[in-house]
């Protein structure tokens, strides 16, 4: 009975969040960021079609992988998740509307779960849709036979699935971190810079500390190693010093995300509403 009630409450929060937050003007920059590589790859394909020259398939695949690892994962998904998940609580504090939730008979942890799910739904839908469009845009200038060969006889489908999976996991990992940051911190710039630096410095950290990072798990799951194809300093962003298997990386990331969300859940129980000091 109580479980049904809590599920109904999570569903209600999810509905309300989707309605009032994610189709708001505030989030437009997230969508622009998410879909900007589509424009890049679409432009590339158009140019190739215009020239009428075949492109190097392997090179395109490596470029896609490089853009994914250096820009999409590190910047677009990172800052997109920052915008989506930090705003789940911070945005409501700035709008002075969080108290309406706090004045309903819902456990705050359940409220947080509903908001987190709403954030995940939007982040995964947005960034995974972008991956599909990027993929289509990148290879749009190849003929059908080449694409069939790549997708069904080569590694194409596997690569696409891996990019989608890594993106979804990135949303879970960064989402949990920024959800917690939105509850703990008042200024989003501080956690954003701190986490960005921490993630960038991951290859240089001691092995034990590397595990407390989202990118550590994600890099091991990326389908193509592009470290040797990218010049300094960007190759530092793609190098995997001590790669781990997907069987460890996926549960590892989910465990880190769960720990962060549980920690945030403890904190939110005693969170105060003090809009006046914002």
């Amino acid at each position, binding site marked *: 009975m109580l479980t049904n009630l809590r599920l109904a409450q999570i569903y*209600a929060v999810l509905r*309300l969040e989707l309605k009032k937050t994610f189709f708001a003007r505030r989030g437009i920059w997230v969508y622009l960021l998410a879909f900007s590589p589509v424009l890049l790859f679409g432009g590339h394909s158009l140019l190739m079609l215009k020239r009428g020259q075949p492109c190097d398939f392997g090179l395109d695949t490596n470029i896609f992988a490089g853009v994914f690892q250096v820009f999409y994962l590190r910047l677009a998904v990172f800052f997109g998740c920052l915008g989506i998940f930090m705003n789940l609580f911070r945005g409501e504090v700035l709008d002075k*509307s969080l*108290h309406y939730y706090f*004045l309903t*008979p819902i*456990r705050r942890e359940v409220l947080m779960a509903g908001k987190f799910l709403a954030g995940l739904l939007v982040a995964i839908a947005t960034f995974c849709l972008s991956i599909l469009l990027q993929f289509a845009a990148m290879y749009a200038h190849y003929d059908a036979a080449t694409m069939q060969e790549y997708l069904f006889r080569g590694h194409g489908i596997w690569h696409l699935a891996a990019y989608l999976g890594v993106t979804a996991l990135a949303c879970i990992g960064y989402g949990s971190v920024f959800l917690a940051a939105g509850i703990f911190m008042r200024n989003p710039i501080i956690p954003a810079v701190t986490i960005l630096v921490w993630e960038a410095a991951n290859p240089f950290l001691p092995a034990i500390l590397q595990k407390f990072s989202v990118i550590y798990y994600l890099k091991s799951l990326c389908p193509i190693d592009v470290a040797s194809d990218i010049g300094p300093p960007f190759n530092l962003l793609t190098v995997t010093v001590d790669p781990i298997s997907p069987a460890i990386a996926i549960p590892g990331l989910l465990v880190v995300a769960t720990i962060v969300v549980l920690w945030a859940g403890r904190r939110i129980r*005693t969170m*105060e509403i003090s809009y006046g000091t914002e």
Partner: protein
Amino acid sequence: MTSSNQIVFDNVSKFYGDVLGINRVNVSIPPGITSLVGPNGSGKTTLMNLMTGLLQPTRGRIEVLGISPNDPERMFRELGYCTQFDSFPKGLTGYEFVYSYLRVYGCLHQEADDLAWRAIERVNLVEAAKRKIAGYSKGMRQRIKLAQSICHGPSVLVLDEPLNGLDPLARAETIALFRTLAADGMHVIISSHILHEVDAISDQVILLSNGYVIAEGEIHGVRSEMQEHPMQILIRCNKPSEVASQIFQKDYVVEAQIHRDGRGLLVRTRDADKFYLMLNQIAMNGVGIESVAPADDDVNSLYEYLIGPEESK
């Protein structure tokens, strides 16, 4: 009366860093309309926010009908809070605002729809319910907040400046609604700066100043305990001079001023009960008394005596 039907503050203090919010508050609030009265910064909103779990006390214990504010799942089935914050979730209509949060309560669609419309009707906002809140006037926003706070049928209603922004008609309707809710056995806790309206509707008051509760209880009870301020009583009669000469023989009468029209007098007495008994005697001796009414047995006077006229401005 058990604590399970009272709102209890047990030695509660709240500090914002070094700044005092409220200090050592010990009050028990019974059902009925209770007004929190005090100047800006006296701790009224802090008290309400502590009661509803929006703030955590630095010290002490709070219970609302036996439930801790840290148990929102139970408490907000019993409590509705219309805050002073004049802000709303973006993009919602009045109806969606009430309906959506009822869904968060766990209500199914039909129940939430029924409850939302019932609450909107109670605050007379049916015609504007499908319009976006962003286009509402201040009074309409106040009423939709009120609808949201009463929509689930709470036993305790906490209202922070609920009459702000309402026109005179809406004020009268809202006050009548508070009276109806209190008559049904509900706790209605109101903070307001409009003292004559507080006076007209309150069963009891809590006076706050600089974070301290300086008086609490029924207005008459609080007033009668203020020995340093003799009670003022207004008498309209046909022989004010005769009344004055008789009452001056008593040591509990401090002062008597005859009205300029010669049809009444204002008396200041240290013991109102004894004075009323004596006045009965005077009436029986042939003085025609039209009316007798306390002149400073109201919230306004309590406020002025206990907090001071400067702060009440």
